C-alpha cells in the first residue's frame, strides 16, 4: 500500500505542478540588468532585478472575469475615488463588454487603482516604470534596441496610428524576452507612474521649478534622442490614479520574494 500511496502522491504533485505551469505560462522571465533610463537616478544607471512579466496585456475577457469575482470593481459599483467617470465607459454594462469591443483586445478605460487591484488578485503586481522600460527597450532580437532608428520609428509610427486599442493582443511583434504588445496596442499603467516629476504645464519645467519639486534638478532627461520614451514619461506625468483612459491598459509582473525586498516603488 505504501509505495502505491507514494506514487499517487508523486503523480498528484506532478499534476499540480503542471497546472501551476499552465497558470504562469503566459508569463516570461526577463533577466535582470543595468540600463540608463530616460529619467535617471542621479543620471546613473538603474539596476533591474530579474522578474517575470505577462506576455500580453490584460484583455477585456480576463477583466470581465475579474469584475465578476470582485463585484466592487464593476462599472456601476466602483467608487469614484478609485476610478473616474470614464471607467469601462465603452462596456455595454456591468457584466458585458458588448459587441464593439473585442474579447481579446486589451482592456482599457481602467484606472490605476483597478489595474493594481487586478494584479494583486492574481498574486502579481504592476511593473515599476524601470521594469517596464527595461523590458520595452527590446526589439525582436536585441535586449536594448534604443539606439536603432528603425525601432524608434516603429514606436513613433504607432503613436500616430489611431484606434489601436481594439486590436487583438499578440498582433504586434514578439520581443527579445518573448513579450508581445509593449508597443503598438495600448499604453500601460506602471506602479510608480507618479514618480515622474514634471508638472502638467510643460513650459514650467524648463528651469525645473525648484519650488514645486524638491530636488528636481537631479532628474533630467539623460537621452533626449529617445523621443518615444520621452512621450511615455510625459504621458505618465500627466496621469492621475483615478483616470480611466481609452488607450491605457496594463499588464502584471511577478518577482521572487528576495528581489521584492530590494524594490523601491
Amino acid at each position, binding site marked *: 500500500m505504501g509505495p502505491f500511496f507514494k506514487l499517487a502522491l508523486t503523480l498528484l504533485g506532478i499534476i499540480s505542478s503542471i497546472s501551476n505551469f499552465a497558470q504562469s505560462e503566459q508569463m516570461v522571465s526577463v533577466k535582470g540588468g543595468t540600463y540608463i533610463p530616460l529619467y535617471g*537616478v*542621479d543620471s546613473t544607471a538603474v539596476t533591474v532585478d530579474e522578474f517575470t512579466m505577462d506576455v500580453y496585456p490584460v484583455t477585456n475577457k480576463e477583466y470581465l472575469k475579474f469584475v465578476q469575482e470582485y463585484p466592487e470593481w464593476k462599472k456601476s459599483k466602483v*467608487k*469614484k*475615488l*478609485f476610478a473616474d*467617470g470614464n471607467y469601462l465607459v465603452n462596456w455595454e454594462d456591468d457584466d458585458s463588454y458588448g459587441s464593439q469591443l473585442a474579447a481579446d483586445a486589451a482592456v482599457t478605460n481602467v484606472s*490605476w*487603482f483597478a489595474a*493594481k487591484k487586478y494584479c494583486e488578485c492574481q498574486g502579481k503586481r504592476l511593473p515599476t516604470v524601470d521594469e517596464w522600460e527595461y523590458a520595452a527597450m527590446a526589439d525582436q532580437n536585441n535586449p536594448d534596441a534604443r539606439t536603432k532608428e528603425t525601432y524608434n520609428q516603429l514606436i513613433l509610427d504607432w503613436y500616430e496610428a489611431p484606434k489601436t486599442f481594439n486590436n487583438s493582443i499578440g498582433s504586434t511583434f514578439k520581443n527579445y524576452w518573448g513579450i508581445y504588445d509593449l508597443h503598438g496596442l495600448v499604453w500601460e499603467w506602471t*506602479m*510608480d507612474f*507618479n*514618480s*515622474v*516629476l514634471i*508638472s502638467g504645464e510643460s513650459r514650467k519645467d524648463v528651469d525645473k521649478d*525648484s*519650488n*514645486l*519639486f*524638491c*530636488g*528636481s534638478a*537631479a*532628474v533630467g532627461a539623460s537621452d533626449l534622442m529617445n523621443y518615444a520614451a520621452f512621450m511615455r514619461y510625459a504621458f505618465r*506625468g500627466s496621469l*492621475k*490614479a483615478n483616470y480611466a483612459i481609452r488607450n491605457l491598459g496594463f499588464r502584471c509582473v511577478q518577482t521572487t520574494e528576495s528581489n521584492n525586498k530590494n*524594490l*523601491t*516603488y
Partner: protein
Amino acid sequence: MKKILNTGLLCLMLINLIACNTKNSDKTTAEKYQCPMHCEGGKTYDQPGTCSVCKMELQPLALNNKKKGEISELSIYNLPSKWTNQNNEEIQLKALQGDVLVMVMIYTSCQTACPRLVADMRGIEEQIPADKKDNVTLVFVSIDPQTDTPQRLKEFAKENQMDTEKWVFLRGSEEDTREFSAVLAVSYKKISPMDFSHSNIISVFDQGGELAYQQEGLGINNEETVSKIIELVN
C-alpha cells in the same frame, strides 16, 4: 360662514403647496443628468437624454446626498491602508474622521524643501483661530518608510515642537504610501539612498475625508488654504 370657508380653503391650498414643495424636494434628491460638455452651463435634467446643443448623451450627476457619519465615494476613508503613527500605534485613516485634515508628504532626513514644508504647515496652524484648533488635525505622511520609523518620527515631532495630539506623523508600507500619494496627486521618486524628489503639495480634507483644497509650491501665500480650513470647520 363664508369667512371660515375661505380660511379653510386657504389652509387647504397652503397644505397643498407645502405638500407640493416636499414632493419637489424629494425630486431633487433623485438622479440628475447633465451635458458632459456643459453646453448650457450648469443646467440639469431630471431624465436621461441628449444635450440640446452638442447632442451628446447626458451623464448622471454624482449627487452628494450622504448622511452624517457616512462617507462619500470620494472619501480617502475608503482606503483600507494601515499606518503607524509617531507613538507606534497602528491606525487606519478612518480614525481621523470628523476633523478637517491638513496633509503633506515629506521625509524626515530631507534637507531642502521639507523644512520649508514643515514651516508652511506651522504657519497654517498658527493662523487657525484658537477656538477652531480642536477641529483640525495636521498630518505628515512619510515617503521614506524605511528610514522613518515611528521612533524617528517621534524625534522629528519633538525637534519641531509638534509632539502634541494635533500633529500626526504617519508611516506605512511602500505600497500603501505609493497609493496614498496617488490619491493626493503627489509625485515622488527616490534619487539616492538618502534623498527623494517629491512634489510640494499641502492638501486639505473635509470632515468626511473628501479633498477640498490643494496648495502647490513652497513658501507661497497660504491665505486661501487657511480660509478654506476655517470655512470647513464652520
